[in-house]
């Protein structure tokens, strides 16, 4: 018995020592479907490659970014425009390529490395029910601003983050020159906006362009005709220290990043939000389909 205990404790000790030496990576994710899929996908992928992965998702952008700067998160998928405007306070209008180059440069000073960007551009957008938009003759954000200024009594559903972001609600109203009263704006969890809009509880909802529910629920995305929104290229961002410790990580992540574009992300998101499949299964299915698992 005693020898067994010794053996067991020895084994336990050996295993903890082994994990301490293995390549530990903490993968982060934000609090909406696409980010949870990406976090799960990345975790499973890196786990399959032999890394010791821990997954932490469900945070707001600012919290996640703070955690990465503090070294509590090693890797997560960020959008170029979010970093440009919210973390680096750049207000210039830049092309998608310029945006990427600029955040790569600015974030490098903070010890963060932007890897190869994917072709997915998950911009914020405002959407309406298709029939309602046609009936009111609203196709662009300028049309929307006009309708608000004509007091058509439109109500809006936004999420908490967008309402207060620097590329969010207040600057958007300034750019298009309209003002919506406090009582006509309902704030809620990102995922509920789609339901609220579909069920007619609001007239306009804040959506993510790559969300699968936009086609599924027959929404019309209003065109950002004055190019208010920046580029939001979906890109893996990793701490420089982590990359130094695991140099092969870059090529491995580039492989994954190269597979993602708007249609792919929209499809994956729809599998979760419309077909109600679990995030883990959807992520796993995608990896297997591309022989990454």
């Amino acid at each position, binding site marked *: 018995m005693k020898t067994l205990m010794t053996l067991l404790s020895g084994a336990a000790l050996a295993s903890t020592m082994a994990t301490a030496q293995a390549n530990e990576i903490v993968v982060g994710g934000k609090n909406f479907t696409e980010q949870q899929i990406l976090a799960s996908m990345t975790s499973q992928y890196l786990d399959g490659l032999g890394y010791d992965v821990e997954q932490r998702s469900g945070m707001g*952008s600012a919290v996640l970014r*703070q955690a990465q700067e503090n070294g509590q998160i090693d890797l997560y998928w960020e959008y170029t425009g979010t970093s440009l405007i919210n973390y680096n306070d750049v207000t210039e209008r830049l092309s998608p390529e310029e945006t990427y180059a600029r955040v790569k440069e600015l974030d490098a000073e903070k010890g963060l490395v932007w890897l190869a960007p994917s072709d997915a551009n998950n911009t914020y957008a405002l959407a309406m029910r298709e029939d309602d938009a046609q009936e009111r003759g609203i196709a662009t954000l300028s049309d929307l601003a006009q309708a608000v200024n004509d007091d058509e009594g439109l109500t809006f559903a936004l999420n908490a983050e967008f309402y207060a972001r620097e590329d969010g609600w207040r600057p958007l109203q300034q750019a298009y020159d309209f003002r919506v009263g406090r009582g006509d704006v309902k704030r809620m969890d990102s995922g509920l906006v789609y339901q*609220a809009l579909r069920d007619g*509880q609001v007239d306009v909802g804040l959506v993510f362009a790559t969300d699968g529910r936009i086609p599924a629920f027959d929404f019309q995305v209003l065109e950002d005709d004055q190019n208010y929104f920046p580029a939001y290229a979906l890109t893996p961002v990793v701490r420089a220290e982590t990359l130094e410790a695991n140099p092969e990580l870059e090529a491995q992540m580039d492989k994954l990043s190269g597979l993602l574009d708007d249609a792919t992300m929209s499809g994956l998101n729809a599998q979760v939000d419309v077909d109600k499949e679990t995030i883990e299964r959807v992520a796993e299915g995608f990896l297997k389909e591309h022989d990454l698992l």
Partner: protein
Amino acid sequence: MPTLNLSGAMRLLVLVVVFMAGVWSQSSGVIDDFIFYLPDIQYLAVQHLWLTAISGSLAILVAIPLGILLSRPTMEKVAESAMQVLNVGTTIPTLAVLALSMSFLGIGTVPAVFGLFVATLLPITRNTYTGLKGVSPALMEAAAGIGMSPTQRLLRVELPNALYVIFAGIRTALAINVGTVPLAFLIGAGGLGELIFTGIDLYDPVMMLSGAIPTALLAVAVDMLIAVTAFLMVPRGVNPSRA
């Protein structure tokens, strides 16, 4: 009502701490940040209190008759199992109740009020039932002995004697209710949760506290309000705090 009994030195210490906190908050500019959110706080606090008022009063209106009904002798067999069901109901996290009510009532004020109503209903019903069951059998026997009808006994003996316990239930339930309303933000019903959750999402502690501190103050205020009401409404002879 219980009061804090502090010795002179302790009281001085508390005063000093409060004073220092005031000095710090003024000098660090936090006060200005809070003032920035003041319009938001006012708007949302009104929304917050409406949610509490509607769900709370509905809960009181349903829970007290339900508690009385369960405490009647004819219901004795059902009462225990009903109480167990209510006990189970109390242990379900409010967030889950909100999520469930959202699934069949959609989003916004209606499911939030319903979810809060359910969460508030249970403690009041339980206290009403316990309070009525706890009335001394000797009193009940005396009441029957002088020829009171069951209705008279309920109104003149049982309820006055149980009133203090019933109020304690309402106090607890409504304080919990106010503290739970922030979760209603997640299903689109507004309230001070907007500031709390946005503050969490944006890593903005001041915004978060602008929601959290008023929520706590409202909970305390509601609790005190009901305590005062109880003090005034419960007759002198059966009121421990006025004995």
